[in-house]
């Protein structure tokens, strides 16, 4: 079973250190060809046609091509895979996915451990040469092993490797000529064209970089050794570059060495870095910190464009610029500015593929030849990307995916290649898919492995479940649920019973999905999938579930009149809503009514109704009101955001009507009990597992973040105290203007200054940091929606473990892993919200396409050439220009910053912040296939 040949090799560590490692060479590694007579073919995948072997660079760069089914029958050498893994984990994962895909013929050959293909490292040989030699040895082995009947083709673009392979009698080809030989021209678009300075075989056929353009645009990146040294000495600072979502010419690098964010202004200073790249930054001299800013605005050219978009609901959605007025007024007020810098090198790229469309251009004469086109990403943070295509005509009106390959100093734009078409621009399905891809949301159907984890259907509560001693039988209680109309994934239900001592027993039951004995077993494919998805995503016209439909809508939905398993939190409360005792238990329940908010509200309001259900509702509502008041007294903020609701045509899925989402008392009642349940559960799990609980915190906003709010408030003569959440809550209460909407508007503006709450692992932070600012709670978690949030599933497991019902899965022992789960949840959560917002924006556009509308709007921000308005009715905001574009304000208008006004020179017109204006909304198409919503003043 064991080959006894032992080899040793040296590797040099950080310090020079000899390491000796054994390699066991084997004779039980097979070639993977189904037709092979000498090998074990049980796991073979390769057929009798030509076998392809790729070298590392081809794999790294041409992954989009490899994913195309036209390329098949491939041997992946383990030496190549290892190198790919070290260089690019994302590509590695994609290749691994290919090798496990039963539809593709990709076979991994562990050449390093095969007795005939093992290659001993030679003295003075570079890792590259070593790998190339190993690839050649393996290729030759395949050639002799399979005999002349099966051709073996080594695909490499490395000139030296190719030459030696030919010498050694291996047939080789470059990827370009191989793809050409396949005779499928559309494949050529998928090819990545290597950067010109590389040593690779020259690309005679597609050299299209116009020489006139070949001037140096960007500064050279420093070599890695210099960067390391600079970081060490503190001259450079390392961090992740984040580009401002609303101004792609401004980026931030959070630097630990400075303890502050470094601002990078303009593409020049960003020096070819992309959002998410890990970069090395050099600080600019202090006197350039401000000057750079103005330059960057001048640099922006025609690219900067304000679109109408959904009003932001938190600071994460909003532009990050603190000064409201850009341009003329800035020199007059020397606000303290943050350090500015420029990128000197890129430590790790974050390139992936992007959704977008080609910039409209005139069709070149003659078709079928390569033309170069500019790709504009939907994500504004991404610069335009130059691609080469043969199918320009076909692509111009399409949404396409493009991947970035390289960006050299001489070109203004990075170059990339076409990956695939999503669909036609403006088509609702296409645009929805774009939204999903943009936000990295997995909307694929669940795999067979995941579905295999589901219990057999139809499912019902078994007698064992009922008699189980850990489960309380609460079927006799009058339990009901209150949800939005048409809600199918009902994950919470309530009950409220008056006790003989005058107290109330109030219970919140949450569907018990995380039950080990039930549905989602820790570590199962279903659990892994849910943990990856993290949350359900709600788009306007569809929902992308975290869990398969049978679970979401049936087994785990607390529907009326069926028995369901649940996890209950039961409080005994006085009529003053003081909690006397709290109990957590698993239970079996039977909901007696699934009410909608409207129905529940109607029942409470109808004084003639005296049935038990309505009485319970009223009692609960009374308790909820007290609890709510108490929470507000503690300093919880009543925030507001412009939630929009669409009415969707069931046939065409087109929006029929939009309007603000109305919040009723019933909503607030349910919300109050859910908050209380979450707080109770957070305490319980933290007490039992202080190091590995999953909690949720909401950081206190800094003064800087609240600056825009304070500016606006000051302009309208409002004095806001932001020293604490309590003080802010009180001053928001006092903020009453002449019109009824004024207070709500101020609250909306306040809400968008706050960041989102985030999940974290309790062991990673100290208790004061657990604070939830918005709810004024010292500790908070998510427990109430396990169907649609994975965080709740985790919390269910923690709670069950704390009650000693179940074992805690082993992942909770590994805090690093727990932290990465929390990070993933935050990422997914954020993306889900972004996707929902984008979907609403998309449907708003579709809605107004046929319906030009006049409506009222409020000015929320003053610009040098106009202002930004917020349209409460539709929850959107966008720019209204007072001057035509390009004039930039000119002399006609000037901005009065302290007053937050824009005034016409002759004083005939004044617009100030929060003022109501009437506007006209209409969808226009300034460029073909690029519809946008335009707001104009009436």
């Amino acid at each position: 079973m064991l080959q006894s040949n032992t080899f040793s090799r040296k590797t040099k560590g950080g310090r020079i250190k000899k390491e000796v490692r054994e390699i066991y060479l084997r004779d039980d590694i097979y070639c993977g060809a189904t037709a092979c007579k000498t090998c074990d073919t049980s796991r073979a995948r390769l057929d009798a046609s030509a076998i392809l072997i790729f070298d590392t660079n081809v794999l790294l760069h041409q992954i989009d091509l490899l994913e195309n089914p036209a390329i098949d029958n491939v041997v992946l050498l383990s030496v190549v895979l290892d190198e790919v893994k070290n260089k690019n984990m994302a590509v590695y994962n994609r290749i691994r996915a290919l090798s496990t895909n039963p539809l593709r013929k990709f076979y991994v050959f562990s050449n390093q451990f095969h007795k005939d293909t093992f290659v001993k490292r030679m003295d003075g040989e570079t890792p590259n040469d070593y790998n190339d030699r190993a690839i050649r040895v393996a290729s030759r082995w395949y050639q002799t092993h399979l005999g002349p009947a099966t051709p073996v083709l080594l695909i490499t673009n490395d000139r030296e490797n190719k030459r030696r392979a030919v010498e050694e009698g291996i047939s080789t080809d470059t990827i370009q000529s191989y793809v050409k030989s396949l005779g499928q021209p559309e494949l050529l678009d998928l090819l990545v064209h290597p950067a010109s300075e590389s040593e690779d075989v020259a690309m005679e056929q597609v050299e299209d970089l116009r020489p006139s353009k070949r001037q140096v645009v960007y500064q050279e990146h420093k070599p890695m050794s210099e960067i390391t040294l600079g970081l060490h000495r503190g001259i450079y600072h390392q961090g992740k570059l984040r580009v401002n979502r609303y101004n792609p010419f401004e980026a931030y690098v959070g630097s630990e060495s400075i303890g502050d964010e470094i601002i990078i202004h303009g593409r020049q200073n960003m020096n070819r870095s992309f959002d998410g790249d890990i970069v090395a930054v050099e600080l600019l001299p202090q006197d350039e910190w401000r000057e750079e800013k103005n330059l960057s605005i001048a640099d922006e050219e025609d690219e900067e464009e304000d679109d109408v978009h959904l009003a932001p609901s938190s600071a994460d959605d909003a532009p990050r610029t603190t000064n409201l007025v850009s341009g003329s007024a800035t020199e007059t007020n020397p606000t303290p500015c943050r350090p500015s810098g420029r990128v000197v090198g890129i430590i790790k790229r974050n390139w992936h593929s992007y959704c977008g469309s080609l910039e409209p251009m005139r069709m070149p004469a003659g078709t079928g030849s390569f033309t170069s086109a500019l790709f504009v990403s939907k994500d504004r943070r991404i610069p335009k990307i130059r691609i080469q295509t043969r199918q320009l005509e076909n692509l111009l009106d399409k949404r396409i995916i493009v991947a970035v390959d390289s960006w050299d100093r001489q070109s203004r734009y990075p170059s990339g290649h076409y990956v695939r078409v999503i669909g036609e621009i403006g088509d609702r399905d296409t645009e929805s898919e774009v939204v999903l891809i943009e936000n990295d949301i997995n909307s694929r159907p669940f795999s067979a492995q995941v579905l295999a984890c589901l219990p057999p259907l139809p499912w019902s509560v078994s007698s064992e479940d009922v008699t189980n001693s850990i489960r309380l039988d609460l079927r006799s209680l009058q339990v009901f649920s209150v949800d939005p109309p048409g809600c199918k994934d009902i994950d919470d239900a309530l009950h409220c019973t008056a006790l003989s001592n005058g107290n109330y027993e109030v219970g919140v039951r949450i569907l018990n999905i995380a039950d080990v004995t039930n549905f989602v077993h820790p570590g199962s494919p279903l659990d892994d999938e849910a943990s990856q998805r993290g949350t359900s995503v709600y788009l306007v016209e569809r929902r992308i579930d975290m869990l398969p439909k049978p679970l979401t809508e049936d087994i785990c939905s607390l529907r009326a009149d069926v028995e369901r398993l649940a996890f209950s939190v039961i409080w005994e409360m006085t009529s003053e809503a003081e909690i006397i005792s709290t109990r957590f238990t698993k239970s079996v329940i039977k909901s007696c009514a699934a009410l909608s908010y409207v129905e529940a509200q109607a029942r409470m309001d109808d004084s003639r109704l005296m049935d038990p259900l309505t009485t319970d509702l009223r009692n609960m509502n009374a308790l909820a009101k007290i609890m709510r008041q108490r929470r507000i007294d503690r300093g919880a903020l009543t925030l507001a955001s412009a939630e929009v609701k669409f009415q969707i045509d069931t046939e065409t899925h087109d929006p029929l009507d939009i309007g603000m989402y109305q919040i009723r008392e019933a909503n607030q009642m349910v919300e109050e009990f859910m908050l209380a349940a979450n707080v109770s559960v957070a305490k319980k799990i933290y007490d039992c597992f202080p190091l590995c609980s999953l909690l949720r915190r909401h950081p206190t906003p800094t003064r800087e973040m609240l600056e825009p709010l304070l500016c606006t408030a000051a302009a309208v003569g409002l004095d806001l105290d932001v020293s604490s959440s309590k003080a802010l809550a009180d001053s928001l209460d006092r903020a009453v203007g002449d019109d009824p909407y004024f207070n709500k508007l101020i609250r909306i503006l306040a809400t968008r200054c706050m960041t989102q709450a985030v999940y974290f692992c309790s062991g990673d932070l100290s208790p004061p940091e657990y604070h939830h600012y918005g709810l004024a709670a010292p500790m908070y978690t998510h427990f109430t929606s396990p169907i649609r949030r994975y965080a709740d599933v985790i919390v269910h497991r923690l709670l069950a473990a704390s009650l000693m019902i179940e074992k805690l899965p082993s992942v909770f022992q590994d805090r690093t892993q727990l932290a990465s789960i929390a990070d993933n949840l935050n990422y997914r959560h954020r993306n889900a919200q972004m996707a929902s917002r984008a979907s609403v924006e998309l449907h708003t556009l579709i809605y107004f396409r046929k319906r030009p509308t006049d409506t009222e709007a409020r000015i929320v921000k003053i610009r040098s050439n106009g202002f930004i308005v917020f349209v409460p009715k539709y929850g959107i905001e966008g720019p209204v220009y007072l001057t035509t574009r390009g004039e930039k304000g000119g002399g006609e208008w000037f901005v009065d910053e302290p007053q937050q006004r824009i005034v016409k020179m002759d004083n005939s017109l004044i617009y100030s912040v929060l003022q109501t204006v009437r506007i006209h909304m209409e969808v226009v198409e300034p460029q073909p296939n690029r519809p946008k919503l335009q707001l104009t003043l009436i």
Partner: protein
Amino acid sequence: MMQVRPNLDYEGPKSHQHHRAFVFGFEYGFLKEKLDQKEAAKRANEQLGFVFDIGPNPWSKPATSSFGCKPSLVKMEYVSPEGLRLDGRRPMEMRQIRAEIGTVARADGSAVFEMGNTKVIAAVYGPREVQNRSQQISDQALVRCEYSMANFSTGDRMRKPKGDRRSTEISLVIRQTMEACILTHLMPRSQIDIFVQVLQADGGTRSACINAATLALADAGIPMRDIVTSCSAGYLNSTPLLDLNYIEDSAGGPDVTVGILPKLDKVTLLQMDAKLPLDIFENVMGLATEGCKAVANYIREVLLENTKQLEYRRGL
């Protein structure tokens, strides 16, 4: 337990920062001083069926919040999807083992034992008169053990401290394991000294030491109930792995060292320094036990061969 680390540059020594829990013949005895976790959390963990509770995970560092960007889940692959470990073995395979008896002429018994690149030499003196009279035991032999590591045994050629916590602990482990199989009551008022030195360390030194000591004792002709053999097994990438080498050992996963008396089918040593759910623990321990049996077969062959040669030399 899956090992997920934010970066791959972790290389730190593993066992030194750890509290170790010992089990002899399944009697639990904790060497560690105090659990520094909160009492409640500990109790809860015990309830939840973890084998041992060893304090907070020394590798977990405060996570840097990377909100808004995709967290990188970099998982070190200790077993490739093709089922091969970093050194080409399959999960259930042991490294190559080799033994040689009688390597130190002056000692009463000696042996060199190799498991892959781990190489250990053991020398046994005795039974002889007890050197320190006060330690003499009237009805059985006194067994002493000294473990050390040669300065050249690892790549960095540092001076290895003697009598530090780790070597004291390993000395104790070896002494107690060997004591359990030597028929000490046959040699009252005498002393047996076992010296083991690691010549080359590449994971699994503890097991190699015990195997070498067994051979040396047999060479010295000391009466034993049975030979003791030892082997370790770990659990990485959700796979039980037999006989961890240094790289695998440094991964920070659980590492179960088992010592058995193969003929009597008894466990004399069981050590682990991490937490594992019970069902997985049983698998890993079963694997290690299989390893012990394989070692036992080999050791028996070596001893037999040695006896044959002795017979030959004596002209029998």
